[in-house]
């Protein structure tokens, strides 16, 4: 089992992005997903910049995967998608079925991303037939359902599980960050830049609930499966996806790597460097915001 660094879901300054991936070169991750998968208005890095980063990370021994935009609305979104597909140097993560069409037509092997809604073996078999070599279950899928699906895993298909980070829960045409500032989406003044880990949404009694990240809505809780490594191993999961956050990401990666290498895991220590409270309800077939495992788990 190895580690993947998921695509950066937030909008950071160009300098911050470059500095972040400069560090990533030295982290114990096997694979790095790159590119803008949330909002087409985010342009501080354009595709050529991401490709340049991709080359650098590949030179540092990382497998690079280019992530496509999850919500495609315009012809210009499609144009970017076609450029990613036709580049050909790197594997691509398809995050909607238009990308699947283009990738299968081009004969490019791909990763079936978590927003493709693969809930059963038949759909996974369709994707395998079209060139998918790796897939991620929807983030809401429980261990039990995943176990059942994996009983009929297509030959050669690799499985990656979202194992750390705020959960991407929903996508909209509307930008909730712009809405917060009473700005129209088309003139959002790029306020996402002010919120490197998203904008916190709490209930009227102050309970953290969700995180607004432009057109994407995330959980407030940080999904953490670090206490579930024995179960993940038993399921023969190939990789764990860790989703970037603005601070302490290197330490998060190190902690996972240490536990993979056999160290006992201190979930409390990990909790101190998370941007929100830990949650793992989905894995146990419960409401996503629940925290089921107690205290220090034996890993």
């Amino acid at each position, binding site marked *: 089992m190895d580690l993947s660094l998921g695509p950066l879901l937030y909008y950071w300054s160009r300098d911050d992005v470059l500095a972040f991936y400069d560090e990533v070169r030295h982290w114990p991750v096997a694979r790095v997903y790159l590119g803008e998968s949330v909002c087409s208005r985010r342009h501080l890095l354009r595709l050529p910049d991401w490709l340049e980063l991709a080359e650098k990370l590949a030179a540092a021994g990382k497998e690079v995967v280019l992530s496509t935009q999850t919500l495609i*609305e315009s012809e210009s979104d499609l144009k970017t998608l076609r450029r990613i597909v036709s580049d050909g140097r790197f594997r691509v993560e398809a995050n909607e079925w238009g990308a699947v069409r283009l990738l299968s037509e081009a004969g490019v092997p791909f990763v079936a991303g978590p927003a493709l809604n693969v*809930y059963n073996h038949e759909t996974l078999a369709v994707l395998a037939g079209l060139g998918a070599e790796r897939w991620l279950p929807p*983030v809401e899928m429980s261990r039990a359902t995943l176990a059942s699906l994996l009983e009929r895993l297509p030959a050669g298909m690799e499985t990656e599980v979202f194992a750390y980070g705020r*959960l991407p829960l929903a996508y909209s045409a509307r930008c909730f960050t712009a809405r917060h500032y009473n700005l129209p989406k088309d003139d959002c003044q790029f306020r996402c830049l002010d919120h490197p880990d998203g904008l916190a949404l*709490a209930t009227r009694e102050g309970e953290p609930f969700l995180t607004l990240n432009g057109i994407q809505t995330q959980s407030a809780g940080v999904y953490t499966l670090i206490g579930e490594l024995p179960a993940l191993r038993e399921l023969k999961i190939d990789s764990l996806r860790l989703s970037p956050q603005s601070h302490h990401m290197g330490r998060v990666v190190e902690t996972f790597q240490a536990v993979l290498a056999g160290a006992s895991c201190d979930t409390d220590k990990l909790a101190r460097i998370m941007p929100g409270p830990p949650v793992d309800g989905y894995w146990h077939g419960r409401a996503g915001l629940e925290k089921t495992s107690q205290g220090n788990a034996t890993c």
Partner: protein
Amino acid sequence: MSLDLICPAGSLVSLKAAIDHGADAVYMGFRDNTNARAFPGLNFDEAQAAEGLRYAHDRGRKVLLALNTYPQPDTWSRWTGAVDRAAKLGMDAVILADAGLMRYAVKNHPQLRLHLSVQGSATSYEAVNFYREHFGIQRAVLPRVLSLPQVENVVQHTDVEIELFGFGGLCVMVEGRCLLSSYCTGESPNTAGVCSPPKAVQWKDTPAGLESRLNGVLLDRYGKDEKAGYPTLCKGRFDVGGETYYAIEEPTSLNTLDLLPEMLKIGIAAIKIEGRQRSPAYVTQVTKVWRAAIDAVKKNADAFKPTPAWQAELNKLSEGQSHTLGAYHRPWK
């Protein structure tokens, strides 16, 4: 054929109301979580479905079956069984979201007409054409996220008929790509066919006001003069940056009557009315207004203007008694 009126049928009474008042087709679901309105007391068993089909077909109308949740591995046969029953009953089409289930339908019932559900989240012609090429879908229902010019671009680049939502509850999120309900309650439209399920709702009168909770999470608190609506998760009031407001969307409904001439012009095949969970009275009123409006726009699109009586009637039926053009009108975004 264009601007067919597709109305919701949560029960046989609603189905007949829709047909009697001018629906070109109705859509229904079976009594389980194979459809996205899996509410207690709603939907059709096989005998009722057969009766509904007879009623519609005798009057030259159509019945579409929504099988638009995502089949789960352990209960896969529930969904394939539903496809088999739909074919046996003679449904005019099944509305599917899942690619695996489409493959099953094509293989086992090649004559069965397939529509891509809004829950399939196809927002581009590349995605729509994917389902066309691989499964031969005849129609796609687009998520409520595109502006009308973007919809027109899809129509121009596909042979697939395009159906749009015209009226009813408004999903702010891309349908099929929203897990807010399962994050809060454990059940989402994708897996359980419900959003903000009634069994997770709690109401409580408190000194601070009437509170609505979903699985314990406070969604809103109403003052004395405020009207409380159904606690749909995305339509609650929350705190962001010290400000309490409808952070995601107000309790409002979609109403696109104003856009009918444009929808006709760009070649929209059908308009869907949301609300299988609503009463037969709702179905009757909405069907009447939309039948009149569609007839009027087809007769003379240039002179078309929704009458104040239509709008007043629809507003009475809307969530929060207000309506919006949603994403079709770009400034909403």
